[in-house]
């Protein structure tokens, strides 16, 4: 199908084996590694198009692998996390991971996330982004919902633009603050929640149950790919 190369990193042999077979079945070329060291070596030998990375590895953790990988690779990373590993999960996302799934995950969910992060990483800057009724003209800074223009403040627009350019991808609080407000504001997470709330009131048909701008509890926000 695609021939794209996916590197799977997990120290549990059965999970590794099942993921290998699954990804091969989905048309990917699969490499695998059971430790942090093996993962970095494999990624250097055969640069992957995406990485599926367990958070807990015998010789280190996924966050370190992520950080190291990011110094020389743009390949999107999906983290496998478990309940009880929320802090490590956020650390990995902040270190450059693109998304996560929680064990035990469904195969369809994992494959959908994988497609999303790979599409995004392949996409160039689009002048216009459309998701359902939501249309964002990046160049002219104009947003319409169902053809009706909505007025956004500059920060609201930038927030929506960053989410839309990474649509389908989970963006952590820290990433959003950095992208929209600059590095100086990275700790002021409450700015973000207030802006998201304002933004939802303007673009969501029902702000109390959002369709476009989703909250990933404890992690960040995501603009959906399609509705």
């Amino acid at each position, binding site marked *: 199908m695609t021939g794209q190369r996916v590197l799977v990193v997990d120290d549990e042999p*059965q999970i590794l084996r099942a993921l*290998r*077979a699954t990804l091969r*079945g989905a*048309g990917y070329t699969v490499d695998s590694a059971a430790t942090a060291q093996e993962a970095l070596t494999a990624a250097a030998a055969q640069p992957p198009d995406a990485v599926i990375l367990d958070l807990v590895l015998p010789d280190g953790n996924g966050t370190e692998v992520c950080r190291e990988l990011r110094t020389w690779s743009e390949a999107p990373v999906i983290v496998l996390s478990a309940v*009880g590993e929320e802090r490590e999960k956020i650390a990995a996302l902040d270190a450059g991971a693109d998304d996560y799934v929680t064990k035990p*995950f469904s195969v369809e969910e994992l494959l959908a996330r994988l497609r999303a992060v790979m599409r995004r990483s392949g996409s160039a800057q689009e002048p216009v982004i459309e998701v359902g009724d939501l249309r964002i003209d990046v160049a002219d800074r104009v947003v319409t919902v169902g053809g009706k223009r909505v007025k956004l403040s500059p920060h609201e627009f930038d927030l929506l633009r960053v989410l839309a350019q990474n649509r389908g991808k989970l963006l952590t609080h820290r990433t959003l603050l950095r992208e929209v407000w600059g590095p100086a504001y990275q700790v002021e997470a409450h700015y973000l929640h207030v802006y998201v709330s304002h933004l939802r009131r303007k673009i969501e048909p029902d702000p109390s149950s959002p369709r476009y701008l989703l909250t990933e509890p404890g992690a960040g926000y995501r603009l959906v790919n399609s509705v």
Partner: protein
Amino acid sequence: MRRLATGVLASAVAVAVITAAIALLKPHVPVLSLGVLYVFAVLPIAVVWGLALALPVSVASMLAFEWFYLPPVHRFSLRNSENWFALAVYLATAVVVSELAARARRRAAAAEQRQRESSLLAELATELLRGRRLDDELPAIAGRAAQVLGVASAEISLGPAHRPPKDQAPYPLEIAGRTVGAIYTPADPNAAAQRRFLPALAALLAVAVDRDRLERDALEAEALRRSDLVKTALLRAVSHDLRTPLTGIRTAVGALRSPTLHLSDVDRAELLDTIEVDSERLSRLVGDLLDLSRLEAGAAAPELELWSLDDLVREAVDTLGAREHVEIVGESPLVNVDAAQIRRVLANLVENALKFSPPDTPVLVRIGATRKEAIVRVVDQGPGLPEAELERVFEPFYRRTDDRKSGAGLGLAIARGFAAANGGRVWAESRPEQGATFALALPVVEVPAELTA
């Protein structure tokens, strides 16, 4: 009584001695002026025995002087004015001196009493500060307090006040406005001492009671915190150990059922394999959990039969399929055990040893016997165990700090449980860097006569 008798005797001697002295001095000194010498009889008696004897001594002195020396000699003629004058001098001396002496004695006694009280308080303070448990000390302290107060008995009780014993008055132990107990003493002969001593003793005891309470609270809080930690670790361990095989199974099933995937026959077989292996792992975990809860509930009744221990060892190693990695040496003692349970113990010990052995180094199983016990030692050449972990490794869900491999941390706990159910015990020995030894001891059985015949 004895004191009074001595006093009377001393009085008689004093009067006699002075009378004799006057007889000796009479040729040289006018006899009238010698009457004053009786003051020396009155004086010591007044100092030592007080007014009660000093008064009779005064009168006796006057009478002796009159009888022996004042004319008409050997006759009482109480009309003599010298007589009355002498008596007045003796009486005045007696009163003044005995009062002074009594006052000094009272002062000395009071000082001594205070000294006893304060030294008891100081001693108690030292002991209690040193951390002696108050409860154990209470009867002794009460006894010593009674002694110091000069009363027959005293009682110290902690907790809410109760009705005082008959004829006893309570003195409350109070700290921070709470009553934590009471001291009971007889309603007093020595009120002043009680007023002085009891508040100090009560304050001291109250502080000690409070300190004991704080210490107990701290211990309880620590115990709670630890059991919370244990529960958290337990939950984490169970959730991880259940989730990992579930993830494998769910992934494999999801892939097999997915209409969008194109699986090769090889991949299909791999996925089925994963399901099998992980299901096996799940079922083992559930079995282990059940065994553990049965053991903890004391419901693992062993069916005892006679076995040769080396047979059980070999069978246990075979269940692991590990015959080529294990070397078995030693004797063949007989044991009366539940074979399935002891095989399980041995398999768990050997499996654990294999897990920590470097590749290609065999695990040694040495079977020996003393007069009382058959002992199996499972020796690995792994990293060994630090002293602090020797006991902890037997706690359910405990994982060695160097354990990177799978396993729920139940094997050793189960081994210990089954060993105990069969009258045996399991323990760990280790010298760091020299490998670990896990040992199983079982009561040895005399070889029955019909087997040797």
